């Protein structure tokens, strides 16, 4: 057993090294020294307390989105629409934040609930069609991302635009702020929420009967069905839960970091979260580390753009290469697709 696990870790490690090597090659092709890029990245990510806080600030939404992805993966489903749920969650949390004036904690909680509900609402239709008619959730959630980004932009620019120039909503009241952790950074309680969520979701899946049912549906739907688990209901609930966490990520960004909503609110956090969860093979605890890794890359890349000629998207390339390199070892499968007696096997 142990040697199996060791082999797979070794394989994973080699694959990542291979990907980093490829990444170095890519960096060479854009005329930079890979070493300089690496040093700049590390410096940018961990060079000072402020920078470490900056890294954690980037880690937070990736972590929460990653947990949203883990939830769906665990049930054998792919929610790729976390980006959209994040935008919706972020917008509606902001809306509650600037439209009402309420007592401090209550206001924040209410705004956060709005984010969660928005996330759930945004995945509800894809989830319903997936559960009831087996409509491919990968495509439906991806397409919903584009719609979410455009609708929130519309709401921001055409309906709620702050008077006086900027393409953004009015700022939220301070009563809706998610408290900051340190005075020198915008790092806030969102990180704690993310960590708690990771542990909570992990415990849910390993310690509770509901989590067990979801896990088995993801692992062997026929077995779960035989054991009396209602697959349709479960598929719907898993996707809704995943969407709720995706919405929460948006709420954390809105109430903890930006305190307003604007165009390009949180570029790519949803996708980074999906990748972080994939790299952790769907394990929420593992996602803490992969999210930190990606957060450091993101944070480091900010300095990268200042100090070198490389663009910060180079880190996206590295992320993608890592996933490709380990893809053959990722055991997550969309299992919930080939379930339930009497229904036609899913085609794609």
């Amino acid at each position: 057993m142990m040697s199996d696990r060791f082999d797979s870790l070794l394989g994973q490690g080699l694959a990542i090294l291979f990907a980093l090597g490829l990444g170095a090659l890519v960096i060479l092709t854009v005329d930079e020294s890979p070493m300089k890029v690496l040093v700049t990245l590390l410096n940018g990510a961990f060079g000072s307390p402020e920078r470490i806080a900056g890294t954690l600030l980037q880690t937070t939404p990736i972590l929460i989105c990653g947990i949203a992805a883990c939830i769906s993966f665990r049930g054998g489903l792919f929610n790729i629409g976390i980006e959209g749920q994040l935008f919706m969650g972020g917008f509606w949390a902001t809306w509650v934040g600037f439209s009402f004036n309420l007592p401090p904690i209550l206001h924040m909680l209410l705004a956060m609930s709005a984010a969660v509900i928005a996330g759930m609402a945004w995945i509800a239709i894809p989830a319903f069609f997936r559960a009831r008619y087996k409509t491919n959730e990968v495509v439906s959630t991806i397409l919903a991302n584009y719609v979410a980004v455009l609708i929130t932009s519309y709401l921001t620019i055409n309906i709620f635009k702050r008077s006086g120039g900027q393409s953004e909503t009015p700022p939220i009241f301070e009563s809706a702020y998610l408290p900051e952790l340190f005075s020198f950074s915008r790092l806030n309680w969102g990180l704690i929420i993310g960590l708690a969520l990771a542990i909570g979701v992990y415990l849910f899946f390993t310690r509770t009967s509901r989590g067990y049912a979801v896990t088995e549906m993801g692992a062997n739907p026929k077995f779960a069905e035989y054991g009396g688990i209602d697959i349709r209901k479960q598929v719907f609930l898993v996707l809704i839960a995943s969407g709720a966490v995706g919405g929460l990520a948006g709420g954390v960004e809105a109430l903890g970091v930006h305190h307003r909503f604007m165009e390009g609110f949180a570029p790519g956090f949803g996708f980074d979260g999906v990748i972080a969860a994939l790299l952790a093979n769907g394990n929420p605890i593992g996602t803490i580390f992969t999210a930190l890794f990606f957060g450091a890359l993101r944070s480091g890349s900010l300095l990268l753009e200042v100090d070198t000629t490389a663009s910060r998207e180079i880190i996206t390339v590295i992320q993608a290469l890592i996933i490709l390199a380990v893809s053959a070892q990722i055991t997550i499968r969309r299992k919930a697709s080939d379930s339930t007696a009497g229904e036609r096997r899913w085609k794609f």
Partner: protein
Amino acid sequence: MEVLERLLNISLVIATIRTTAPILLVALGGSFTTKAGIFNIGLEGQMLVGAFFAVIGTIATGSPWLGVLCGVAAALTLALIFALLVVSFKANEVVVGLALNILAGGLTVSLMKAIFGTRGSIFGHGLVGLPALKLPNVKDLGWFGQMISGYTPLVYAAFILVPVLILFYNRSRLGLYIRVVGEKPEAAEALGISITRIRYISSLLCGLLAGLAGAHLALGYTTMFTENMSSGRGFMAVAILIFSNGDPLKILLGCLLFGFSDALSLRLQTLGISSYLVLAVPYLVALIGLFALSYRSRPRLIQETLASMGRVLSVKSNTIKPATATDASKP
């Protein structure tokens, strides 16, 4: 009425044909993988690198045709990686497809910044688009001539490919084998058809057309490259592929619907409707199509069931009334 007249006229048809072409090309590419039983979510990325390298190639060589070749080569490279990981290493096709899309996004922006020192878009730098083809003697055809003339070559290619693919799937051995591999791999295996080989070929054919789609986007549809310029067309193509099941004619219909909604929404913009809402229309059309058709497939399932039941019953008419036929149906 006046509004309608402003919306619906010959230039709308022309606009529809223009907007249909890129998505049609990429969806026809996806039909190869769909028919071969591969779920290829990586179309978006293939199209994007196709567009980027078509621009690079054109600027480097001065010839848009060599640019098209570069774009296709880049898309083929992604397609090859996809096939290698999915077919040979049995990696999850969704994971690989998504990663390749992300790679394409990151790579194009990084290279753009490295080469041109800018973000956002590339234009100028001696970038020339593909020439528009003026068909001869179309003046005599009146509005119809106006409708069919003056597009860039890949627009014609896209529409001509529809009958070519129909012929390919129905009359060529390779097309037939691709269908067999996707529909009934065990039948292919029993006949000694290599599933691996066919899936590689399908992936590469898909890359070829996705690359052309990208090249068209950058050198025909516009003459520039912008960050993420495929803007979800690859995903919409996947939605079309799901409900068309990869059949070229249904793909054409689906793509025309998108082209039309795209063209119409651009017009709606002139009526003062927010551009954000207008831009969302094609995605919404894709989503509604996806949901509506999966909902509709249920009655079809029931119909099929009834049909097959009917068949059984007609063979054994004595089992129509289960309750009373028990003894009769015993041999």
